[in-house]
């Protein structure tokens, strides 16, 4: 059978989705030895012990069955209580859904909201899964650029310029992966105005909400008139170092959450029960450990930002998440070429900015969820590499 004939049996929608740009770097880095990686999008902490211990206890008591489709009622209540800190008020019985990671919540929200012909507005550079999920839901993706001059904040003008009569959903990701940008309440108010004027629905991925430095995270759903047109997506992965547990959630208006629940009950049934027990422990008793981890990211943020600026790569201080996004345009290289050469010559893995969207070109994403020693060693290697370029 030829390759051509093989691909015929695939759905053209799936077939048309390009392979992940991150995957290519993973394959390259994975073949090498002594790699220092600043390319990992997850915490370097193991899940705090009290959370692991709570999950062990749950297993001992036999929490191994399905839970209700929505998720454990106690967990839904813990989620709504937790969201109160961000001035978000939801009914745990109707406006919350526990999902298999924030990832599933993103997929469900898009599937519940869009149909072929609808346009999904995705400000970029941004996290890589919104576009494929929107395409799989049959939508047309419209890229909304954000620019380094604005510190990669989304502006109302840029959004307005991309809106058409077919625009249906706007996907926000702040604090942002990969840029570390945040949006203040005022920034969001300008976006909310556009959303209301054009009757856009917002999917707001706030998975990095806990990881802000020097300011409290603001949610667009807390603004007047926005709760009824926003699905807040979040999860335990980043704030509580629980990536492998696969627990996320969505909160929003009852009709949309119910539609998402309908898809979820047929495709996932429920999120893993021992993970849900662990999440319950994290949300109810995890603040101290979480604060300790955030303080540690904050220190390393200063270290990495300083390091890049000292070697002559402009790097704004990211206000959220755990990524620095230094500007490499003065090296004259493209992001891809820079990252590939850096990896081959110095065994330091970082991620080219353009895999997150066209305006990420000229930047590289460097995670500082790595030990101080590793960050210092990586910075030293990158500085030597950059020196040779000039």
């Amino acid at each position, binding site marked *: 059978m030829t390759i051509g004939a093989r691909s015929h049996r695939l759905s053209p929608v799936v077939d048309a989705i390009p392979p992940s740009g991150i995957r290519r770097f993973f394959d390259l880095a994975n073949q090498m030895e002594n790699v220092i990686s600043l390319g990992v999008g997850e915490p370097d902490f193991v899940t705090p012990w009290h959370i692991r211990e709570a999950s062990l206890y749950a297993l001992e008591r036999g929490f191994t069955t399905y839970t209700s489709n929505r998720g454990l009622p106690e967990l839904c209540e813990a989620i709504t209580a937790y969201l109160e800190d961000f001035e978000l008020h939801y009914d745990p019985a109707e406006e919350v859904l526990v999902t298999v990671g924030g990832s599933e919540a993103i997929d469900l929200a898009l599937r519940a909201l869009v149909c072929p012909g609808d346009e999904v507005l995705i400000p970029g550079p941004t996290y890589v899964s919104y576009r494929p999920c929107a395409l799989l839901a049959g939508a047309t993706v419209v890229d909304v650029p954000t620019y380094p001059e604005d510190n990669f904040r989304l502006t109302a003008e840029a959004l307005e310029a991309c809106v058409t009569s077919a625009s249906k959903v706007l996907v926000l990701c702040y604090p942002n992966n990969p840029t570390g940008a945040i949006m203040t309440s005022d920034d969001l108010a300008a976006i909310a105005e556009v959303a209301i004027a054009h009757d856009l629905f917002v999917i707001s991925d706030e998975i990095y909400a806990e990881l802000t430095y020097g300011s409290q995270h603001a949610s667009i759903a807390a603004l007047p008139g926005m709760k009824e047109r926003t699905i807040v997506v979040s999860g335990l992965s980043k704030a509580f170092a629980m990536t492998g547990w696969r627990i996320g959630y969505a909160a929003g208006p009852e009709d949309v959450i119910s539609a998402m629940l309908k898809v979820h009950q047929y495709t996932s049934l429920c999120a893993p029960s021992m993970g849900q027990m662990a999440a319950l422990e994290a949300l109810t008793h995890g603040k101290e450990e979480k604060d300790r981890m955030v303080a540690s990211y904050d*220190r390393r943020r200063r270290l990495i930002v300083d390091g890049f600026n000292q070697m002559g790569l402009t790097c704004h201080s990211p206000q959220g998440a755990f990524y620095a996004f230094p500007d490499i345009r003065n090296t004259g290289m493209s992001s891809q070429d820079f990252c590939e050469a850096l990896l081959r010559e110095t065994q330091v893995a970082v991620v080219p900015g353009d895999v997150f969207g066209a305006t990420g070109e000229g930047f590289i994403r460097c995670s500082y969820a790595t030990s101080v020693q590793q960050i210092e060693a990586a910075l030293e290697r990158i500085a030597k590499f950059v020196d040779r370029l000039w």
Partner: protein
Amino acid sequence: MKDVKELELLRLLAMDSRLSTQTLATLVGTSQEEVEQAVRELEQKHVILRYSTVIDWEKVATPRVTAVIEVKVIPQREVGFDAIAERIYRFPEVRSVFLMSGGNDLQVTVEGSDLQAISRFVSEKLATIENVHSTTTHFMLKKYKEAGVIFDDHEDDRRLVVAP
């Protein structure tokens, strides 16, 4: 230096005293000079007493034996427990001395080259001190965790090298 920064500096040093003053300055968000001065002052005030290393002695060939000894004492007029504690902690084989609440008074950790050395210390030195009423010696069999460091169970980085 502000108190919060000073505390943060101390916490960082307690975890890793080999961090350079340059790195420490960046991590707590201040200048190298300020860190140097703060450390000097903390040393002078005996807040920082010593820069030491946590070592897993079981992995090196010199056998050491450690015992925790509970000591009951009759406190002395005027000086209470302090005078007896002082007589005990001056011995170099004594690694730590704590005054404890509960049934026993002082908890003393002693290190020696073998069981005999420790027995000898207890019977000849410790038990004979005036006002030491009784001693109970517990030999340490295995060290799992010390100074916040877990000895044999490393939680290695199991993450994929590149991830979204």
